[in-house]
């Protein structure tokens, strides 16, 4: 089993602040995905990163894959109340393609 640890578990910030969520492991992953999940719904894919050191931007969200492909971060600039939700990272097994390991999530609350 390849474990993914997300931190922080909970984050409550004011609108306009910046934040970073971390996803760490001692294992190497083939690819890593970030999702957002609303209560009672399925996760919605935000981004996939594949190459070590890769950086992807999605509007105010910046995703980075660690050089060794063991960790990733999600940075949100100027957070808005609409960013409130549960953010999940998921890694695809290095030797077990098509097998995915999810982190336990970061619950973000952005106050207006």
């Amino acid at each position, binding site marked *: 089993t390849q474990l993914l640890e997300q931190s922080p578990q909970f984050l409550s910030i004011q609108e306009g602040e910046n934040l970073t969520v971390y996803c760490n492991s001692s294992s190497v992953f083939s*690819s890593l995905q970030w999702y957002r999940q609303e209560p009672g719904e399925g*996760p919605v*894919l935000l981004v996939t990163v*594949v190459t070590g050191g890769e950086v992807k931007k999605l509007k105010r969200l910046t995703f980075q894959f660690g050089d060794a492909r063991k960790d990733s971060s999600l940075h949100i600039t100027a957070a808005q109340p609409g960013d409130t939700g549960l953010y999940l990272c998921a890694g695809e097994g290095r030797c077990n393609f098509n*097998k995915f390991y*999810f982190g*336990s999530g970061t619950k973000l609350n952005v106050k207006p």
Partner: protein
Amino acid sequence: EPEVTQTPSHQVTQMGQEVILRCVPISNHLYFYWYRQILGQKVEFLVSFYNNEISEKSEIFDDQFSVERPDGSNFTLKIRSTKLEDSAMYFCASSRDRGITYEQYFGPGTRLTVT
């Protein structure tokens, strides 16, 4: 916009009964997945399916579970003899490719309650 659909949205069953959870993946997708999420816990991988056979499975996916693609559109998860601890949200997902273009789309889930 194409989406993954799942039925039923909520299933209540008695311990020991068999249940079949149904999913219709996105039509041109080739890879299919089942996950479960026990209330308040992380999403857990159960199984992946490609080219009409299981590609990977987790330790959770024991002989109690089976998957099938009975026709060109449906993808099912069967739980043979349900236990109380099988109560969870079950998500189906599908993707067209792997690698750089990888995108996995999740369905809305089936909430399974075992009493």
